[in-house]
């Protein structure tokens, strides 16, 4: 008649804003990740405008941080994550992806700031004389002899940042989150498609003449590839969930996952991108990017809320 199987585990009931958090963090990290990778290893190809991805990251990270704090029941105590007042020491717990994630965020913010300065210099904006040294350092880090090392490190932290919330939910007891190790992968792929889509949108809207067309199309190409990978990953994820797949495929969640994420958020944009003439090139770029963003948002909703509401 009744059993206690379900009550032996509890949903953390993370508040809804965690979806925004994941979504925004994903975009910030995805945009940054692709930007540094391309800047470092993109070869001699035209990379015009790619640095503008940094604006996105820099703009979104404070929002991310704020949402992170808003998520807490005791918001004013967020600093406890970094400083252990009782013991008077820095707070870091290597066993806790959340604790580690907080530090990853801190480091990532440094990278993002350097990137931001670099972007400003490239675009010739806000060049204060007193900060000349900072700008120069940012340029040096991006173009100097150690650029590849710096940018690679940035990529690692961007990736880590994109995925730490995945590792976080994997390090738990909700079977749907722990049955597979693939949630970080989902987050990474989705971060890239959403992040790059936002970069594309930014470039489309800031494109004076056609100077950035090349970059936009190259980025679009990335999106297409990662969309395919993302679809594949979602299918692998659901299959790997086994008995727990119903946590993300039951009722509304199933409809959102297959129709919203895979259909409207991935397959439709992919098809549109393959037939750009159907709706016109510019409109296709904008529309498909928006769809990808919506899909990315829903994906997070399904994977987070589905299992949580199951308990």
């Amino acid at each position, binding site marked *: *008649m*009744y*059993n*206690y*199987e379900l*009550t*032996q*585990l*509890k949903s*953390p*009931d*993370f508040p809804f804003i965690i979806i925004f958090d994941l979504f925004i963090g994903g975009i910030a990290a995805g945009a940054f*990740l692709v930007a540094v*990778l*391309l800047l470092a290893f*993109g*070869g001699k*190809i035209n990379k015009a405008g790619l640095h503008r991805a940094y604006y996105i990251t820099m703009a979104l990270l404070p929002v991310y941080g704020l949402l992170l704090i808003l998520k*807490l*029941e*005791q*918001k004013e*105590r*967020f600093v406890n*994550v970094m400083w*252990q*007042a*009782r013991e008077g020491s820095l*707070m870091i*717990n290597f*066993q806790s*992806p*959340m*604790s580690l994630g*907080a530090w990853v965020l801190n480091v990532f913010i440094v990278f993002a700031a350097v990137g931001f300065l670099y972007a400003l210099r490239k675009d010739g904006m806000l060049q204060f004389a007193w900060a000349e040294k900072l700008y120069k350092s940012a340029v040096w880090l991006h173009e100097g002899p150690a650029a590849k090392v710096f940018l690679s490190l940035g*990529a690692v932290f961007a*990736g*880590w940042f994109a995925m730490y919330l*995945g*590792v976080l*939910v994997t*390090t*738990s007891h909700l079977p749907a989150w*722990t049955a597979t*190790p693939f*949630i*970080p*992968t989902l987050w*990474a*792929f989705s971060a*890239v498609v959403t992040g790059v889509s936002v970069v594309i949108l930014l470039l489309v809207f800031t494109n004076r003449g056609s100077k950035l067309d*090349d970059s936009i*199309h*190259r980025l679009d*190409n*990335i999106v297409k*590839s990662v969309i395919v*990978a993302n679809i594949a990953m979602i299918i692998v994820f659901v299959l790997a969930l086994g008995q727990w797949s119903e946590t993300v495929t039951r009722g509304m969640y199933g409809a959102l996952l297959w129709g919203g994420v895979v259909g409207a958020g991935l397959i439709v944009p992919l098809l549109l991108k393959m037939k750009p*003439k159907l709706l016109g*090139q510019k409109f296709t770029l904008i529309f498909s990017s928006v769809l990808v963003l919506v899909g990315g948002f829903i994906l997070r909703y399904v994977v987070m809320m589905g299992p949580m509401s199951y308990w």
Partner: protein
Amino acid sequence: MTQIESKKGMFIDTTLCHGCKACEVACKSWNELPANSAPSLTGNSYDNTGKLDGENWRHVKFIEDISDDRKDSRWLFLSDSCKHCQLAGCMSVCPTNAIIRTEFDTVYIDHDTCIGCKYCITGCPFGVIEIGHLSGTAEKCTLCYDRLQAGQQPACAQACPTDSIEFGEVEDLVTMAKKREQYLQSAGYGKAQIYGDKNILGGLNVFYMLEDKPEKYGLPSDPQMPQKTMVGGYWSSVFSLFAVGLVSLLSFRSYRERKFKEEEETTTGA
């Protein structure tokens, strides 16, 4: 780190529990926990508490194990609470070290440090912790830390009319439980077993004598630390980073070859 002075715990013998819920009331009374707002009948046997949460630190489970023909009729009771694990999942994932081990070797939530991130909720394999509605921080059984400091036993143990909840030094309790297990098995409780010996999360300070396998009581037979799945998460992260980086770079670069062709098409098309 707090110096552990003694290892305190509880041995809960379900064969002596008759489900009177005195422990629940004593717990709420001592810890000044509010009653649930607008409680209603759960329809699940005599259990109207439902689960452990921020306001219910003890929960007596009622398991009606009765065959359709009533030949085998059992009604099992289990007074559930935080088990004060040696390997405590909640403590391991806490990002602020708000969950600490006390001088009594018990697991205690420091409410001044807790930020209410809820992560510990998922870290517990038994579903013990939840956020308290009043405190806004994670809440669970403290093993009556304040009473222990005053040399008293926890309120539930004191209230238990049948000594089903025995409080004491874990070592003594384990000895007692082993003897009890032997007795029970000889007295017709063939499946009587200790739950919470060293094999479960390094030993539970609050452990049980069950009449049947743990699953009957809604207890996991082999609970793990949450970190068991963390490693996989990190590996998959590394893989993902390489995969997505590689795919991005390749896609970016592969555009070069087709660039002019497409440009031509676009021009003619337009």
